[in-house]
């Protein structure tokens, strides 16, 4: 009798703390928007963040997308061969990359690369009293640290996703033409004719949402960091976990929304 009760209590506590975390993240997101809409705006910090989130993520995004697109072409070819449908490779690669894999892969890569570095940087600033110092220098940490990074995520990640889509399709094209015997111009025409504007729009909207989530979670975990090196480590881990789970959940929701359109 005792065991089930304590199990239930533990479950209840976990649910409650989960809900509390959701509430805190929501409030943090609202505060970010509020600070975004009121001056001052720190342009220099925004440009630096844009470089970190966007430009420096290009290599990892490009490589991930290329290899995934290539592998996807092989799998679809193998699967399609079972019912004589090898010819659909270009169409399915394009659809798979643009609607699903492009945004998700880029989102997760950004969570690994950008969320973690934002969280570690801000947490270290918190631990070494740099955030307190900002306040005493009449600078709001949300405006100076969070807003530029989140804005950079919102601007840069959709662009990265668009680029990832193209590179992924190119990966499929390379494999298709080099080893599966597709005619290059037919491959390109089939891809181009098949994709609809809504596919591309859904890809970019997902990118926007994932960029927001990834940068927001980095800032949130960093700002809430505990004391010491351990606090920084925990904040970094929590930020990547939170961002990854939220990105996949948002992907599920957004896919549902676009599916019903």
């Amino acid at each position, binding site marked *: 009798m005792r065991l089930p009760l304590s199990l239930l209590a533990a479950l209840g506590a976990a649910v409650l703390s989960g809900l509390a975390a959701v509430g805190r993240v929501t409030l943090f997101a609202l505060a970010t928007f509020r600070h975004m809409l009121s001056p*001052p705006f*720190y342009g220099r910090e925004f440009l630096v963040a844009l470089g970190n989130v966007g430009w420096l993520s290009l290599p990892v995004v490009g490589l991930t997308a290329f290899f995934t697109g290539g592998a996807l072409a092989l799998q679809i070819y193998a699967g399609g061969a079972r019912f004589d449908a090898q010819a659909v490779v270009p169409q399915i690669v394009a659809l798979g990359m643009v609607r699903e894999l492009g945004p998700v892969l880029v989102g997760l890569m950004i969570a690994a690369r950008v969320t973690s570095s934002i969280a570690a*940087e801000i947490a270290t*600033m918190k631990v*070494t*009293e*740099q955030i*307190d*110092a900002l*306040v*005493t*220098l*009449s*600078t709001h940490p949300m405006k100076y640290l969070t807003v530029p990074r989140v804005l950079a995520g919102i601007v840069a990640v959709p662009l990265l996703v668009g680029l990832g889509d193209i590179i992924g399709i190119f990966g499929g094209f390379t494999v298709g033409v080099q080893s599966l015997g597709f005619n290059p111009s037919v491959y390109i025409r089939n891809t181009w004719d098949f994709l609809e504007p809504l596919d591309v729009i859904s890809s970019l909207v997902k990118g926007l949402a994932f960029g927001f989530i990834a940068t927001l979670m980095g800032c949130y975990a960093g700002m809430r960091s505990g004391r010491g090196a351990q606090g920084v480590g925990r904040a970094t881990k929590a930020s990547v976990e939170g961002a990854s789970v939220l990105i996949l959940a948002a992907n599920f929701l957004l896919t549902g929304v676009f599916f019903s359109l």
Partner: protein
Amino acid sequence: MIELAGVTKSFGANRVLAGVDLSVGRGRSLVVIGGSGTGKSVLLKCILGLEAPDAGRITVDGRDAATGDREAFLACFGMLFQGGALFDSLPVWQNVSFRLLRGALKRPRAEAREIAIEKLRRVGLSPDVADKVPAELSGGMQKRVGLARAIAADPQIIFFDEPTTGLDPIMSGVINDLIREIVSEMGATALTITHDMTSVRAIADEVAMLHGGVIRWTGPVAALDASGDPYVDQFIHGRAEGPIAALR
């Protein structure tokens, strides 16, 4: 004029401040002494609103520090943190002139740099330090950059958390003179934490001793040696024996 009445602050079960009453007159220099871990840094953070006190009232020039216009309140403050708290992503001169590069006090970059180099000179640092990043400096140099940043915008109220810790005796003397000068020539109000009795005598108009979460003794610096308080006596003479336990 800074006034504290009945300020308390606990971290969980750890009751750090248990009813602090303190006042610093405008243009005066108060030094707070007290054992390590007694809550001196927490006291400064409460006044600045970086930590929220659990109870009590803090007023600056009659205005409540917690409510009211935080912008205007912070605009007249300068703070040297115990650990320096320099921004490691910015070069030294941009740390020093942080306030002058953005916000209400914004100046042209060249002018802000000039001021930064001038403030660095005042804390005994040569101009070639200006373009280094904080990680390239020694602990004592970082402390002095933090000091230069605290005074960069000529604040009316300045808090120094252990300004001479980690400095050699000559540099300590330079910093003591600087703090004295800021108070007597620029009319600033200063609240300094230090363990260095030479500094106390060089900087202070008044001295307050924090112990057991309350102000144990306060009085003019001239009365420090004849305070008649066994806690103060033990502290200023650095005796291991006395009412203050060595283990805390």
